[in-house]
């Protein structure tokens, strides 16, 4: 396949940035999207030009490092996957592909397609944990019985990879799907009940301070989430928040 790529280039946080056009040729349909980007970069470096900076690491859809808004969609046109799992068979010969960073006030651009997602870190630090020391002197693991139903729901919520696709997809740049995934995981488990109130209040407070918007139930986040985190988690977080507030 031969493709035209329109890619966002931005030298640094203060640079204005612009879309730049590139051509790539002989792209195999079996390549992953990021391998196609590797081919582009290899060519740019060989020509003495600066390669396009983009975040990536595990390349198997679990570390949450890769991002990219591809043709206007977080992680591209396929569903239930991250950009690194997207394959070129989703595109056709001669197509023009638009590649931009995840855009949100809470995610300032570092360079080109790389954004700063440390706002997520600060939200987790505000309460995304259970206050138990790692001494190993806890009770036997089977001493805490958890229904399979709740354990499974907690696992579904916990499978969030913190990539930020939810924020990038939301017209309000809301981080509620991300925050609610952690709040839900612990709200569904007996271990998390003790600090439930402080947790939801502190995490939501931090989320607001980071400049993320609110949820207006559009559901774009759920559609674009590579891990299928459900909107029900936002509903659960809202209930937790109300319980904690009054």
């Amino acid at each position, binding site marked *: 396949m031969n493709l035209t790529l329109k890619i966002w280039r931005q030298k640094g946080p203060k640079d204005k940035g612009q879309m730049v056009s590139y051509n790539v040729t002989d792209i195999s349909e079996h390549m992953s999207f990021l391998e196609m980007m590797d081919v582009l970069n290899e060519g740019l470096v060989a020509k003495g030009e600066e390669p396009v900076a983009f975040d990536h690491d*595990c390349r198997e859809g*679990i570390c949450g490092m890769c991002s990219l808004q591809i043709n206007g969609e977080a992680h591209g046109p396929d569903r239930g996957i991250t950009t690194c799992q997207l394959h070129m068979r989703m595109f056709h010969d001669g197509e023009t592909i638009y590649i931009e960073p995840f855009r949100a006030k809470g995610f300032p651009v570092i360079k080109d397609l790389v954004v700063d997602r440390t706002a997520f870190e600060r939200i987790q630090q505000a309460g995304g944990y259970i206050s138990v020391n790692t001494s190993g002197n806890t009770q036997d693991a089977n001493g805490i019985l958890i229904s399979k139903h709740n354990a499974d729901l907690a696992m579904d919520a916990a499978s969030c990879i913190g990539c930020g696709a939810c924020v990038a997809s939301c017209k309000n740049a809301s981080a509620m799907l991300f925050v609610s995934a952690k709040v839900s995981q612990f709200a569904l488990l007996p*271990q998390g009940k003790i600090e439930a109130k402080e947790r939801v209040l502190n995490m939501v407070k931090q989320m607001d301070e980071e400049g993320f918007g609110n949820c207006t139930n559009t559901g774009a986040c759920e559609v674009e989430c590579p891990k299928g985190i459900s909107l029900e988690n936002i509903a659960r977080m809202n209930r937790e928040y109300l319980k904690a507030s009054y």
Partner: protein
Amino acid sequence: MKTLNSKVPEGPIKDKWTTYKDKIDLVNPANKRNIDVIVVGTGLAGGSAAATLAELGYNVKAFAYQDSPRRAHSIAAQGGINAAKNYMGDGDSNYRLFYDTVKGGDYRSREANVYRLAEVSSNIIDQCVAQGVPFARDYGGLLDNRSFGGVLVSRTFYAKGQTGQQLLLGAYSAMNRQIARGKIEMFNRHEMLDVVKIDGKARGIIARDLISGEIERHSAHAVVIATGGYGNVYFLSTNAMGSNATAAWKIHKKGAYFANPCFTQIHPTCIPRSGDYQSKLTLMSESLRNDGRIWVPKNLEDAKAIQQGKLKPLQLSEDQRDYFLERRYPAFGNLVPRDVASRAAKERCDAGHGVNATGEAVYLDFASAIERYGKEQAKIHGVHNPSKEKITELGEKLIEEKYGNLFQMYEKIIDENPYKTPMMIYPATHYTMGGVWVDYNLMTTVDGLYCIGEANFSDHGANRLGASALMQGLADGYFVLPYTIGDYLAKEIRTGKIPTDSPEFEEAEKEVKDKIDFFITNKGTHTVDYFHKRLGKVMWDKVGMARNAKGLKEAIKEIQEIREDFWKNVMVSGSANEFNQELEKAGRVADFLELGELFAKDALDREESCGGHFREEHVTEDGEAKRDDKNFAYVAAWEYTGKPSEAILHKEQLTFKDIELKTRSYK
């Protein structure tokens, strides 16, 4: 010259750790506040260590090259974590876990370390549950277990196919609690580029801020390296793109011995490669071997037809298939250890029985499991005389519950539905058992410098069993290092803050800056990846699954040539003082080019076959690995003297008092 002292405590193996803990020095809480510890790498080992050290009261500075500790490659571990809980009542015990690990490692690990690992394994599960890790449970609300390769019990705890993710997020949450308290200072997007030694002790590191490019000095009373393995020396592996050996290699060059580099694990169940553009290989969890059966066509003609796309696997009847693991190893069948399974697959593919266009793939088939589970589910749900379709439907549903995310991952990459047609798999580099040499305290041969997790060599011998990496990472970080480091730091309570303006910091920083300047100013002709791919090809072809003296000697020479070429002709774009991913790669590949040579040298030196190290000259009559306990029951710890080719070998003799040394058999 330093002699190796493993510092294994005296006494019976069952009591060593307990007695030892009772006697080591402790640091009182007030003094801990005046002691700084640097932790480099924040995966399972580093993250858990950072959290625990901070809880204890030390001031921790933690470093990660990604934008968050949650991104470390521990997150990609799929299948599970072992623990000798014996919840299944199937005869498990600390001793049996210890025995399985030593045997699985082909008798090349240190007994005392492995026993300690088995001993603390149960604590890990208790701890993780307390942290809110959502392990799989059964309908009664109790924890569920499954079985992994090389063992006869079910002792593996899991969270779907995302166990590493959940355990890492557990350690990450423990870290976050300490970051919020100010006890951990987290340096994201930072890379350690050297260690600083003062009077023979590790006193700090030089790190690069990967966003600004600034070179920073950080001091501490002890430094912990937890930066994972060196599998990316092969270019293609299941490691993350950024996984690198730089921290481990830099400390090696500053005096830490590097042990058993040739012990590298080639994992049997990975998605086969498809083309030259390939950037990495994807693992399919070993847990799949619980239910999947591995086979190739019995007849060469059928294999050829399949390779050419003229025949489909479902067209072959049972008697036209060769379930080669079940045939060769009836006792363990599809659940033989990884090294054995990988070699068997390679043997069949080399003989021409491979099942994809490249001839380098075997089938992993779930049809029998789907039928078996389907029938079982039909009974459970009270479906009488279920149709074939109903059985398939119910069976597929259960398989999806167990491995859904893996099947989805496979389908996205290969574009075939693995519920309906067998998966194709092939071995790929996955884990490195070798690493920085450490004593019982997890201290390297440099005082105050520790190494934990995959980065060290200690627990897995020549082959690691499935679901043991997560166990070791968390054992080291939560339960071992926090004790043993105290014994060292107890002597540091009068040291005071360590200044960073000493000549030693000055010199280390200059060295780092000079190297970066070289890369930026060198007007080369080839990209970093070009050299990395060349190195990877030599490693895979000559230092891969099967090795021989001739190939290894050639590899050493070729790696030296590539390295020479690299330092003349490497081309790095951009500048030093900015976000520059090419520059990051250049430094990492420079280190791989040295490590690769030591790796081949170690493989050449070890004139036996054991675990992941298979020398074609040393095989039994039926083609199995032939160990040489008389001459090679030792840890090869290499001392750096200026060039990898001139490294000096130190031997730590291994003694087996609690396990009888015998030939590993899975027949």
